[in-house]
């Protein structure tokens, strides 16, 4: 077990305690749900790896595959916040922690049937999680297993009887429950080879796959035998693949589609839609994705703190939010700030950090001074190549950054990297400076720090490594007092920005748009966990 994973496990013990403190859900007054109707939704690309959620890490698969499957537990689809308090049972009727968070016991529902008629039992649970953690005696293997680390702390999955499953952990890990509640953690059927999920879907979920016409649409019909009585409300779901963004938006506006795609609607797009169709309902929520600058601290010129700080000072965060996101993002440090997230540094506490000076002109002047101290000047400008992914959201942000850097005498040329090569390049440290987006699964400090800032982590693209801050990471994760932990987290985030470890430019907001007849479709704090569609109904 790697050091970082060990720390992560330790940290999560206390994390869960505090997660529970997240503000409770706002109440919504809705008329009594009606049954019937079909919901039409969009996809920007066809499902990759079919319905095999365990073999992907993309919303393009999770969103359209979730209705077919069930988890043991899930974040309550009717609540906005995701915390240990909002976890509800799905295939597990009840669960209980035993032996001081060492054993997690699930009491499974009876009379649950797979879509092919086979009964669901604890065998399926054991099958799924043995496969995920790649147990030596696992009966099946996934082709790729991107979230193996999530289950690394599971020592064994035991099945005392057909409707009980016990997860025995190597170390206490209360946060395991949160990972099990994610849309990324469905239970597969033991009697179906996992490869089959790439083409068909045998699930227990509220909807059954009727047809998947490749590159065109996925169609679901209601599962009449669903184990929750009276659910789902809808008779069916249809996800249309529409590659052209303008056409997708036109289809939503024309009423051909009922719901926008999670994480895709910018503020301006939402305003435009609202202007065209005033009755549309728009819900802003955090995507849990940040724009940031990665600078390779192992290579000149960014091994020089002054140059890194100059870059950070030069980029006017508020102007970037106004220009690139038209106001559809918020400033923040390593974690998303309240009310979008829980752990982030509030805007008032950002004062004094690089890039947050009262006057952008002063910040630029300071940046030029730092550059001069580092030995660069107008007549001897720094010339660098900035890398970014060849995706519009990256390129737009990079275009803005290039213009800011130009004003402090850094001459930048843009190099676009194909998506497929991006992670490998960044992990190798094969760049000087990059314009990057970082998405974080759960809103949790440990998940973020150990992945993106810890010494030796492959996702720590800037290769920033500071023993002192590593100790702070561990300290906050072991802190049980939520107030103290929050204070520690603010200190850490300020330090990370002051070191220009990976300057965070903003946190993005998604403006989820639905037609008013769509009810009970409630975006969460993360785009990955609200696709089950079990509670959604239409008032048409």
């Amino acid at each position, binding site marked *: 077990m790697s050091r970082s994973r060990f720390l992560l496990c330790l940290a999560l013990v206390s994390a869960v305690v505090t997660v529970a403190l997240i503000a409770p859900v706002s109440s919504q007054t809705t008329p009594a749900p009606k049954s019937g109707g079909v919901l039409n939704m969009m996809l920007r690309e066809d499902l*990759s790896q079919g319905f095999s959620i365990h073999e992907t890490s993309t919303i393009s698969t999770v969103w359209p595959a979730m209705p077919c499957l069930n988890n043991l537990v899930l974040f309550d689809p009717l609540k906005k916040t995701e915390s240990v308090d909002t976890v509800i049972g799905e295939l597990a009727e009840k669960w209980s922690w035993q032996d001081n968070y060492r054993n997690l016991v699930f009491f499974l529902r009876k009379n649950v049937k797979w879509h092919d008629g086979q009964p669901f039992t604890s065998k399926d649970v054991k099958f799924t999680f043995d496969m995920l953690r790649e147990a030596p005696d696992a009966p099946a293997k996934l082709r*790729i297993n991107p979230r193996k680390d999530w289950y690394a702390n599971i020592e064994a999955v035991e099945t005392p009887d057909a409707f009980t499953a016990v997860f025995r952990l190597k170390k206490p890990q209360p946060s395991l429950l949160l990972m099990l509640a994610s849309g990324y953690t469905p239970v597969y059927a033991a009697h179906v080879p996992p490869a089959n999920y790439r083409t068909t879907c045998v699930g227990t979920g509220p909807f059954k796959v009727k047809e998947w016409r490749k590159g065109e649409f996925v169609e679901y019909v209601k599962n009449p035998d669903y184990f929750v009585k009276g659910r789902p409300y809808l008779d069916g779901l249809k996800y*249309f693949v529409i590659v052209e963004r*303008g056409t997708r938006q036109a*289809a939503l506006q*024309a009423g051909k589609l009922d719901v926008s795609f999670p994480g895709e609607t910018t503020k301006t797009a939402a305003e435009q839609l609202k202007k065209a169709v005033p009755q549309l309902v728009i819900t802003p929520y955090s995507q849990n994705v940040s724009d940031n600058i990665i600078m390779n601290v192992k290579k000149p010129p960014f091994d020089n703190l002054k140059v890194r700080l100059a870059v950070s000072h030069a980029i006017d965060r508020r102007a970037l939010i106004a220009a690139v996101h038209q106001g559809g993002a918020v400033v923040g440090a390593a974690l998303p700030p309240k009310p979008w997230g829980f752990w982030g540094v509030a805007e008032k506490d950002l004062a004094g950090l690089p890039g947050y000076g009262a006057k952008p002109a002063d910040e630029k002047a300071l940046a030029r001074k730092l550059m001069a101290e580092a030995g660069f000047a107008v007549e001897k400008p720094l010339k660098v190549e900035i890398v970014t992914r060849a995706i519009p959201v990256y390129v737009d942000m990079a275009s803005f950054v290039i213009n800011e850097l130009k004003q402090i005498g850094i001459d930048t040329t843009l190099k676009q990297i194909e998506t497929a*090569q991006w992670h490998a390049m960044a992990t190798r440290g094969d760049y000087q400076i990059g314009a990057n987006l970082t998405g974080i699964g759960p809103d949790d400090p440990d998940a973020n720090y150990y992945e993106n800032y810890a010494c030796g982590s492959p996702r720590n693209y800037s290769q920033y490594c500071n023993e002192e801050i590593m100790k702070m990471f561990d300290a906050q994760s072991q802190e049980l007092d939520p107030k103290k932990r929050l204070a520690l987290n603010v200190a850490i985030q300020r330090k990370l920005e002051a070191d220009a470890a990976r300057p965070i430019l903003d946190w993005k907001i998604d403006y989820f748009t639905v037609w008013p007849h769509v009810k009970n479709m409630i975006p969460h704090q993360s785009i990955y966990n609200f696709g089950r569609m079990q509670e959604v109904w239409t008032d048409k």
Partner: protein
Amino acid sequence: MKTYVVQRLVIALLTLLGMSVVIFTLLRLAPGDIVDILFSTAGYVSPSEKQAIMKELGIDRPYWVQYLDWLHQIVTGDLGKSYRYDQPAWEIIRPLVPVTLELAALSILFAVVIGVPTGVVSAVRQDTALDYLLRVFSLAGLAMPSFWLGMVIILGLVTWFAWIPPLTYVPVGENFKLHAVQFLLPALAVGYRSSALIMRITRSSLLEVMREDYIRTAWAKGQRGRIVIWRHALKNAMLPVVTVIGIEFAFLIGGLVVTETVFNLPGVARFLVQAILWRDYPVVQNLVMFIAIVVILSNLAVDMLYGVLDPRVRYGR
């Protein structure tokens, strides 16, 4: 005639073989690790997983083995498995074919209906204001990018009518009206472009024919203009027009890429772009081969038509 056809067919087959080499090589030139690209949505692929996948997909074998394997697949009609869908490539390609063929055919129909009459009028009224107007109109069709035209149409529809065509393919049998609506707009957008080519070739070949002696004679004899044009000139001027129609049909099969994308029509061309981005070799290879076959067949058809249309052309020894 028979030997000529056989000869042409043999050449066509050899050309296709050559194309298969070109396609195969070009695709393998693409930078980046194919497994990384295919599974980029999974985030991280560990080296051991990568090895296993390469073996599973058969891309750990030498290129020439993969190439021969593909040829064997084409001959036996089993086109291999899509990397992305894990399903026979043919099953994925088959439903795309009729959509594109119909769209291309309909576009050509529009193009002929618009292009030939305007070409004739333009030739007959050569160098008049009407001629200039028609030529500018048709050249404009040639100049406007089809994706732009499509985009403008969709935006116009949604802005003014809060309506856009159906999002999925509607078979004729299911709903004829919707089906027609679905194909009409993209076919018009594309047909406008092709009509420009047909108009131009109609105009210039008609002008050329009209300068020939027998037409002049007909004029001199006092036959009425319209009859001369229709009976003599146009018939002879159609030869190059047929050529252009053939070339344009072949062009359309691949050239519909953006139109299909903007109108969200599930055809060959739209899928091709996606498959290229995914590096789904079995699908791309076979789709491009399909396009090549259509091109060659339509060239062949044009050549055959020459014999029917033009008595002067005889198929040589």
